């Protein structure tokens, strides 16, 4: 049986079974809710459903799990656009332009663009999963510790430059502060406690979720309450149309393709996921845009690139999961566990013994993407009415949700204090016009930068040469140097002089 007919058969199986359709819709919806709520993440959603679907058939369980994954990554966008509090780290980059758009009265347009772009991203990811899995999986394995370190550093630097365009150093400072926060606790190699001051609660380090909620949620709540800012007067006609804005999308075809490729590529590299994909594609979109100055002020390109990339990342993350048994992103780790529970062991043998599995997964991913689009379009129309509620009434409710979100993961009271402290620090960061996002990205990627660098050095007896002798490393080093160099006036002038001298010579 050829893959295409397996794909079609799986799709029709889903479509004609009322139970599967019900599972598909409810899981996607649950995913969107998980994604939108600060603190509840796609990973947590997949974990929850893993337990609930244990008794079901493997294929049915997979429908539920992939649907909640797709929904969870998509849902983070709602809170980003409406409140500037990203529901998940993957949606943090979407807030940069989504929130300004909403403030301009174009929340509907932002939702429409994000929903359609998410659909496109998910579908492109699926196509790559279905067609070129083995190829991408092999390429992703070329990443060793040196590349991981550079990739983490690159992720932190780029989010710093992007969120603080006037003075990138401020963004980097926030990123460094995040890296420092991430070093608290026992280090991951020798288990030596760093900055714990003998407190056992700090031994396991700083959890990302309370940092995410504290850093994004608390300053936003305080700012809104402080400024008595109210969007209550907005009329429905001002919310913008929700229907997909095809003209903008067609104009962005190049942006969509490059963001999707970045999403698939980053998704396929083990250990990093949707959040970095969104930042990198945002950076590329801004660099290649004709109007980079509109970014951060409500540019549709920003929303399109981030949502395309984080959805394309799903297909990307499943590629090494199915072809090598190596999950490409944190939710994919949960997916691996769930598959093993159902006695499906993903890996090279699965592809040989059950070649029909990949087209099946691709079909389920396709169905999930379509469902996400349908629910998203219906939901956007309703969610938008939240903007009618005066924000000063709404924010205390968000504050309660933040507290619940920080506590829910691990039921650890220490995380509540942590959220409070990080929140207050972030509030002053915001007041001093330091961006918050690099801080969070620093906390997320810091451990990877730390352990990958030390592991790499250990494998080569402390040699720094692989940074320039390994091809992928070399490219990353050059990109990082370019990012840093462009912020140093002396370097900038030197390059400008060099170019004008060359021009003069040529003339």
């Amino acid at each position, binding site marked *: 049986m050829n893959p295409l007919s397996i794909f079609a058969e799986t799709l029709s199986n889903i479509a004609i079974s009322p139970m599967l359709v019900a599972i598909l819709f409810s899981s996607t919806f649950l995913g969107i809710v998980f994604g939108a709520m600060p603190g509840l993440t796609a990973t947590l959603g997949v974990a929850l459903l893993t337990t609930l679907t244990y008794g079901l058939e493997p294929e049915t369980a997979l429908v539920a799990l992939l649907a909640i994954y797709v929904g969870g990554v998509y849902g983070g966008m709602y809170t980003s656009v409406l409140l500037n509090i990203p529901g998940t780290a993957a949606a943090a980059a979407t807030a940069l332009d989504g929130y300004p758009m909403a403030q301009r009265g174009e929340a509907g347009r932002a939702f429409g663009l994000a929903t359609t772009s998410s659909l496109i991203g998910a579908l492109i990811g699926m196509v790559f999963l279905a067609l070129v899995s083995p190829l991408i999986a092999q390429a992703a394995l070329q990443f060793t510790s040196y590349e991981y370190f550079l990739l983490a550093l690159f992720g932190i630097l780029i989010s710093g430059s992007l969120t603080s365009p006037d003075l990138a150093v401020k963004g980097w400072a926030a990123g460094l502060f995040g890296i420092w926060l991430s070093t608290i606790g026992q280090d991951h190699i020798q288990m030596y406690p760093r900055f714990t001051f003998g407190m056992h609660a700090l031994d396991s380090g700083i959890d990302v979720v309370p940092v995410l909620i504290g850093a994004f949620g608390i300053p936003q709540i305080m700012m809104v309450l402080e400024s008595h800012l109210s969007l209550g007067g907005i009329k429905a006609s001002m919310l913008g149309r929700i229907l997909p804005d095809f003209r903008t999308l067609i104009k962005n075809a190049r942006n969509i393709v490059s963001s999707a490729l970045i999403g698939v590529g980053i998704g396929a590299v083990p250990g990093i996921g949707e959040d970095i994909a969104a930042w990198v594609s945002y950076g590329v979109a801004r660099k290649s845009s004709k109007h980079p100055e509109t970014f951060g002020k409500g540019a549709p390109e920003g929303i399109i690139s981030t949502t395309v990339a984080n959805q394309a990342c799903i297909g990307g993350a499943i590629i090494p999961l199915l072809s090598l048994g190596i999950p490409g992103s944190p939710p994919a780790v949960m997916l691996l*566990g769930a598959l093993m529970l159902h006695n499906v062991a993903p890996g090279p043998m699965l592809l040989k013994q059950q070649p029909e599995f990949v087209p099946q997964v691709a079909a389920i991913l396709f169905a999930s993407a379509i469902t996400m689009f349908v629910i998203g379009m219906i939901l956007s129309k309703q969610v938008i009415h939240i903007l009618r509620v005066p924000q000063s009434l709404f924010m205390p409710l968000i504050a309660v949700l933040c507290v619940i979100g920080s506590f829910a993961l691990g039921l650890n009271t220490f995380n509540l204090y942590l959220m409070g402290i990080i929140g207050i620090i972030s509030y002053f960061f915001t007041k001093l016009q330091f961006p918050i996002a690099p801080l969070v990205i620093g906390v997320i990627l810091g451990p990877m930068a730390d352990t990958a660098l030390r592991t790499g050095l250990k494998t080569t007896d402390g040699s720094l040469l692989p940074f320039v002798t390994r091809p992928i490393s070399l490219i990353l080093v050059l990109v990082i140097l370019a990012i840093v160099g462009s912020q140093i006036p002396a370097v900038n002038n030197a390059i400008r002089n060099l170019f004008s001298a060359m021009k003069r010579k040529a003339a």
Partner: protein
Amino acid sequence: MNTKKLIMGLVLAATTLTASAAAAQDRYPSRNITDVVTWSAGGGTDVTNRVITAAMSKYIGTNINVVNVTGGVSGSVGLIQGYDAKPDGYTLIGLSESNTTAAAMGGWENRTEVFDFFIATSSPDVVSVGKDAQWQTLAELVDFVKANPGKVRVGAGGAGSLHHINALAFQKGIDGEMNFVPYPGSSASQNAALSGEIDVVITTVAEQNQLIQSGDFRPLGTLTEGPYTLGEQVIPSALELYPELKTYLPISQAIGFAVRKDVPVEIKQEIAKAFIAAMDSEEVKTFAAENYYELVGEYGAKANARMARLESLFSWTLWDLGAAKVNPEELGIPKP
């Protein structure tokens, strides 16, 4: 009249209710049981616990809910939560051999002796190299290691993990020295072996089976007493090739759950019965076969002795490495 009838009825209802409640208390289990798994969802301990408890709940007739309570050192947060629950048999603690280091790592004050263990599964460790490696047999690798001390890079999970301890024992046994590169877990070590960042990887057969069968890994020897058959290939036993290894090995994985020692004996017997039935069930057998786990099925004194040995081995190894926080001697852990 009506009031009288009503009161009579109420009294009757109340007595039947209390009677049935009392009867329910005599019978174990009368409500849902919670299995506090100390490692994250999706890992070996979690998956094994979910499969075993699902089979057990069929036998005892109530649900066993698996919750993951992770964090701390060596899963201490979950251990403490499980230990602090009432010792009534309604709380199981899902754990593995790695939890035995919790005391030495400063995670909590108790030793393994506070628990009664039920060990369900285990998978043997295997020494493998990437498909492009220059060594075809274990003898070639051992000769190279001896000729080039510290040159061969070996990955085996994190520092202080079962695999790390196996790697140390292997080096001691062959009297060679390798460069141990710690990774956060088994899968990260295997990725590093795939990308060629390290030369040798020591993790379980359950974790490596796909990569071995696809030819990406070349298994050189298992760290068990006998050879291991995986699909069509037979992996020789390193212990048979190098009998000196038997001084330190085998050290096997142990995944299962525990209850507090002071849980009433009758209740522990009920749990043991359910555990035996579960180990004998088709779904557990299928799960083990599909995922290359060996079924252990130990409980009582035998299981406790196994965990006590692992505690001693792990704690002292970590102390010798300088990684442990509390001297095992102070904890009263005997030297291996």
